[in-house]
């Protein structure tokens, strides 16, 4: 599989715009990275280099920050993002089964891989989204799906894929 096709094309003008709006001193590191990731879904290397060249933030600080916080990712993401909540309430109510069923649907076997090979979906675990009474929960592109069983997660994903013209070759759980 290749994620090369998912690499973002970085617009230097946009990066400079964020720097101008947020600031160029070291305390701007986190918000600048957040702006980049909001735009591209991850932190493209080219954008990071532009930040280092055009601010007082040096490369070691910027990469240090980018690798410290869970929010930031250095690899491109698929066209859609699935976030499975792994808060305590979700864990004790079977969040792992959501991952198992989703990974099967996405045909991902390598535990280090998180994006379907056709670039359709990326599966990410998050610490807690704070909807503990609706556990277990997953979020696809910002929309939350409450009180799921493992099998429900797969069904919701397949439904989402159909609605967004994405192909999921994986195991199909018919109704």
């Amino acid at each position, binding site marked *: 599989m290749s994620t090369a096709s998912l690499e973002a094309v970085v617009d230097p003008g946009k990066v400079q715009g964020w720097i101008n709006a947020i600031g160029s001193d070291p305390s701007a590191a986190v918000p600048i990275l957040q702006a980049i990731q909001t735009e591209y879904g991850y932190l493209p290397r080219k954008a990071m280099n532009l930040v280092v060249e055009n601010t007082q933030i040096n490369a070691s600080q910027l990469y240090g*920050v980018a690798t410290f916080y869970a929010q*930031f990712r250095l690899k491109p993401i698929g066209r859609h993002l699935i976030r499975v909540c792994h808060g305590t309430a979700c864990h004790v109510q079977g969040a792992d089964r959501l991952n198992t069923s989703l990974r099967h649907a996405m045909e991902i076997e390598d535990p280090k891989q998180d994006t379907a090979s056709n670039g359709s979906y990326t599966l990410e675990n998050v610490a807690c989204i704070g909807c503990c009474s609706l556990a277990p929960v997953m979020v696809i592109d910002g929309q939350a799906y409450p009180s799921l069983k493992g099998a429900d997660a797969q069904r919701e994903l397949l439904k989402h894929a159909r609605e967004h013209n994405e192909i999921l070759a994986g195991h199909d759980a018919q109704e």
Partner: protein
Amino acid sequence: MSNAQWVITVGEGTCGIAAGAPEVTELLRKRFPEAEFKSVGCVGMCHREVMVEIADGEGKTYMWGNLNKKNLPKVIRFHRGEAALPKELLIRSSEHPEVEGGEYLTRQTRIALRNVGQLNPTSMAQYKARGGYAAIEKIIKNGMTPEDVIEEVKISKIRGRGGAGFPTATKWGFARGAPGDLKYLVCNGDEGDPGAFMDRSLLEGDPHSVLEGMLVAAYAIGASKGYAYIRAEYPLALKYFGMALEDARQAGYLGHNILGSHFDFDVKIKEGAGAFVCGEETALLASIEGDRGMPRLRPPFPAIKGLFGKPTIINNVETLANLPWIINNGGASYAAIGTEKSTGTKVFALAGAIARGGLVEVPMGVTIRHVLEKIGGGSATKRPLKAVQMGGPSGGCIPEHMFDTLIEYESINATGAIMGSGGMIVVDSKTCMVDLAKYFLQFTQNESCGKCTFCRIGTLRMKEILTRICDGEATLEEVDTLEEVARTVRTATLCGLGQTVANPVLTTLKYFRHEYIAHVQEKRCPSGVCKALIHHTIQNDKCSGCSICQRYCPVKAITGTVKQPDTWVIDQQVCINCGMCAEVCNPDAILAA
């Protein structure tokens, strides 16, 4: 329907939206185009989402819960006089006092949550109509000095609600007395405990209360700049708090010469980027400064030398939300609630195997059992409750036989758990305590910033041993090693994370050692959770032959003929013990043991 104006109020916090509030609202708007629609934050009855209150303009009110597209027509038909009362959906009503779904709320004492679910969080006018900004006006118009404010808060004896429980007024006193022209006040909204969501509900349900609390605190310590550090995982909280700042600025509650006084204060939002350790004060400050969120050696304490080297006070969201109430009602009224050393109320986020999960605010000094049974309604499953996990990854598990423990700082600490920020996860007999300890160590090992060797390496070693226990590969000596590592990490680390990181291990070892022993000696997981020690088998006498398990099995390990229960079997060579089949099996015919 009469011609009076109907008012339909929909709970649209994050939980409500996730449970489907937008589609319920859309449908109601179509059916009641004349009605006035109001959006409120989360009232905290998460187990009844989606919730809607319908008032007919003539004094009749109906609060409905568990609404969805399918059952909503029943409610609509009822209001049009076309159908009988769908009682199962009614929470409370002015017309039906016999329906007591409201007891979840009436058994609480709401101070911090006084406005949550009662007002539109984006409306400053509604906040003011409920007595909002009266505290800061009282302070300035009555000429209260910062010392007067600190004294009032001292009388209230409120302790920091973020977890450690340090007296708020004492902390303020340090910063007040610290030399320097520029001081900072930081609102800690980096609610990183998995299982806690009271800060989210406050920030998105009543942002002005938190902001007014910041004004009170800033005035007391003499801060002119403030930061609200809110986690990025809470988009609605960020949005509503941002709107509250804008409105407060317009109204003159933020900026220069607030309400005509010499008090200047303004607030910037800092979006957290996802690091549990940033709940620790000094790590949070490092994060605002643009660094990796790694704790710093104390002293100097932030109250003396904090953000950008200036005196800084960091207060938790819930602490701040209590402050306007304390100023308006007096410290003594607050101190009258709760116990001698733990005054006031505490908000808990109740979740897990509990019938009625959600936000609960109770006076300090009630028992855990009171919260779980009287308010939470006991077990949600038919299985008995086993324990409650309090305080998240820094906290511990309190077993059922200790549910009569009082909710106050000292009593909770004596159990080995901590009050923490207020997460309460209830578990029943199907939760493995060793697996739960492993879950927390996986979390903290991942979140350890790496500065202290004992935390960095210690969490990894503990996680490894716990994994070996769950896999049935550990020896009894390793259980002792686990305990020894846990005690060492506690004493040899710098910050609150490292010092408490072993609590989940130590409390489960203390109260559930027999479960550890079963894993090690009998190679058995008594709760049927640890994959390496269980097998899924079909009990053919209970099986209905419906084939649903086969359809949901991700590895196609299940075979059989439809409607012939005796033919169904799971191929143990193929089965990955994911448990999906047991989850979907209606007659509960799949055994995990």
